[in-house]
């Protein structure tokens, strides 16, 4: 019923507009959104040809934030690449950290200790929640609703506080290591995190209440930015944007990594693949992430958080300070980097916006021979021009938000 009413409302208006335009042909207006424009987070330039307010053609240009990530990685040791990955998706850097560490571990053929896997899951899900909250807030902001945006930011900052306690920095986390994580959970952190999740849930419900049933918001998002399932797959969509079209593909479920197969969580799916579905889906994923974190905190085992292999991970400080073997292993790791056997690996994890892939090639040296990051936002952004074609200029904004492209990873 809903779709029918929506169709009956929006379609005739557009058809009327189009028929009038055919009678009165006018010259299209080229409008340049970005690279510096309030709605283009990151720096993306969209050159749109407008007919009235209807976009006839949108050409997306990227590259204004290009920092040479892949080339930089080729000139750093395997361990040194880690802080660079923070700067890919700067909203959920921990997921990048995890992805990178797992890619190198895949090449090494090792598994990190169980406790470290749990910590990675917890940290990653906290980061995913921060990512989704940012997107929900930003979408609301750019539709004009400022209060939900700041509620989202508040919730995100609470999560960032926990991340700060865990990693020592809000965004530039550099938390994982090859073979584990940098440090164990701080004392009392798990209880604090549980308290934070309660508060975050409150704010999330407030955002949800303010927006998801509000007709203004529904009108703006439902039926706009639609992409069909076939098109979404064709454009290489993954993550929430693909799931919003109804494809049940989540790397955490389809190819379980870390300890994701031990948790009871569901993958929400949309039906229409429009902005509204993407919004609701992320709200639901926030709830699922919360479930995963709570389960992981309950199951959290004891044990080491990094492999006890001095060829890969730094020796314990006590050994470095006190024994000659420790110092030697330490020096060798720092000076040459961990020696990764030659080969290549493509490791894919579920990032904030989809499949985050690292394709790495090693030639046996201490530095990566080639690093390629498969940014989840890259295919999403490449489809933007296709999605918004024929829609109004104002629809470009929620669409741009709901695909949640992050400049740092797309433009490397």
């Amino acid at each position: 019923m809903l779709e029918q009413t929506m169709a009956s409302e929006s379609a005739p208006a557009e058809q009327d507009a189009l028929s009038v335009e055919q009678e009165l042909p006018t010259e299209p207006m080229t409008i340049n959104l970005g690279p510096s424009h309030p709605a283009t987070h990151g720096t993306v330039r969209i050159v749109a040809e407008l007919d009235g307010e209807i976009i006839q053609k949108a050409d997306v240009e990227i590259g204004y934030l290009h920092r040479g990530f892949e080339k930089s990685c080729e000139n750093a040791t395997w361990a040194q690449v880690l802080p660079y990955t923070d700067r890919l998706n700067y909203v959920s850097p921990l997921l990048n950290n995890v992805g990178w560490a797992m890619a190198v571990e895949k090449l090494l053929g090792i598994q990190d200790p169980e406790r470290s896997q749990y910590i990675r899951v917890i940290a990653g899900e906290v980061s995913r929640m921060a990512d989704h909250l940012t997107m929900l807030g930003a979408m609301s902001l750019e539709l004009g609703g400022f209060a939900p945006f700041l509620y989202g930011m508040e919730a995100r900052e609470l999560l960032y506080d926990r991340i700060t306690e865990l990693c020592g920095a809000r965004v530039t986390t550099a938390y994982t290591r090859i073979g584990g994580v940098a440090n164990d959970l701080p004392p009392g952190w798990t209880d604090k995190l549980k308290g934070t999740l309660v508060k975050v849930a409150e704010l999330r419900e407030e955002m949800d209440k303010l927006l998801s049933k509000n007709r203004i918001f529904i009108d703006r998002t439902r039926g706009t930015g639609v992409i069909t399932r076939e098109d979404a797959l064709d454009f290489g969509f993954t993550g929430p944007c693909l799931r919003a079209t109804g494809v049940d593909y989540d790397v955490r479920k389809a190819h379980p990594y870390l300890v994701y197969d031990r948790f009871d969580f569901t993958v929400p799916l949309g039906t229409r693949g429009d902005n509204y579905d993407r919004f609701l889906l992320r709200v639901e994923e926030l709830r699922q992430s919360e479930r995963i974190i709570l389960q992981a905190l309950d199951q959290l085992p004891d044990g080491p958080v990094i492999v006890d292999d001095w060829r890969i991970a730094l020796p314990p400080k006590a050994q470095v300070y006190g024994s000659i073997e420790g110092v030697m292993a330490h020096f060798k790791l720092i000076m040459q980097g961990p020696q990764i056997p030659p080969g290549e690996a493509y490791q894919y994890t579920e990032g904030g916006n989809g499949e985050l892939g690292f394709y790495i090639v090693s030639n046996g040296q201490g530095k990566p021979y080639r690093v390629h990051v498969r940014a989840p936002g890259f295919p999403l952004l490449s489809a933007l021009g296709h999605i918004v074609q024929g829609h109004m200029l104002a629809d470009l904004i929620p669409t741009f938000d709901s695909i949640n492209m992050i400049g740092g990873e797309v433009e490397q």
Partner: protein
Amino acid sequence: MSSTMSHPQNQAMEPVGIGAGALTGHDVHREAPKGPQGLPPSNFYAPFRPKEIAGAVALIGYLVVLCAVWAAMMIFGDWAIVGLFRVLGASLPAAELWGNAIANILFVVLAFVMLLATLLTMGERKWSAFIQDRIGPNRARLPGLKNHAFWGIPHILADVGKMMTKEEVVPAMGNQTLFHLAPAIAFAPAVILFAVIPLSPDFTLWGEHLHIGVAPHLNQGLLYIFAIASIGVLGTSLGGWASNNKYGLLGAMRASAQMISYEVTLGLTLVGLMLIFGTLRLDSMMSQQTGHLFGFLPNWGVFYQPLAIVAYFAAASAEIKRAPFDLPEGDSEIVGYFIEYSGLKFGIYMIGEFVEVVVFAGLFTTLFFGGYHLPWGEGWLAGHLGPTWLAGLQVLTFLAKTVFFCWLSLAVRWTYPRFRYDQVMNLGWKLLLPASIANVALTGVVILAGGMHGAAIMGIVELVILLAWVVGAVGVRRSGKETLLPTESAAASEHG
């Protein structure tokens, strides 16, 4: 072992030793930081010092003197003017109203509208901050009162200083004349709109017949409002067009389309009110809104025309480009029709918007909420206070109501997302316009059949239905709990 190691102080400082069980190096800096941290002694909430109290007293005294000048001008102004004209050898028709008129122009416009609008610029920032769990502006300080933020009010001075000293950029390819003229065209109608709104009834003070309000006795009061309000669109669209900016042009297009469309609804929503009160004069409407309906309900427009209120609120918000209808600004899509404006010209656009908010709130108060009338106890007060003091109280009542509706307008602005261009048109032409026409027809029929009493009954029935609609909806369901329905994955993948 060395002597340093056995020193108790050093042992306390020793963070990590052998056998600390550390596996990685990172817990080396797990030690509590020793740097300057925590809460430093704050003077942020310090009590007032004598010097500051003196400053505050001076400020309040200044305001009191200002009010005294106002009163004096109202009362003695026409003596002075008549005397002046006598000295000049001329005579003046209707001499007794001149002082009152000049005082009203100066003080109603400058001291009431502009002051309220100026405070609203800060109110918007501060109130939105409270809505969004922030503190809001609190940095600017008055000289001599450095320890107190005064709820951010000194930021107004800072803002004005900033606006006046900023570089003004004029687009080279724009139409220079219209570019400079447009802010004034947008601003002037907003200010003079307030002229017909009465702030108090006529009262007598020391033999002088006075009223507060520039021209509340205008016969064509409501028509004046429609006429002047429609001029405002010129300033907006000219400003957007003359800047030679595509964003500005889009904003101007949206503004003109939207404002012209909503003129119609705006007029029609008030027709019902005209039918009920049988007049266009605002002061006459005001004086009819005394007394009580059924003995307890204030005899306000809201109880006659609840449907019109909703439509009027929406139409007026669209007319002044506020709240969910701010798409001519649409700061995240197109930056707005004033995109090329900077400095004081931008400031004039901005303050013009707040003036419009004040006017809108004033009109809302006047038409639907009894204007300066207190809801209850007015007769008792008139008996005990005398009409003069009651008039003063009524001015304060008007102020309070106006501020409340300003707040409502701002709260709406910070709560809802923005419409889309075509949706605004749909709402205006397909929902609000038919609704207001139906309202006019219904009101007319009811008045023919039942007179004022019938109109009141109709209004109250409408109001009860509306309230039941809203109250029955609020708080019953929690949207968060119900969005999930577990299904089979096979069923889920059927869609698409």
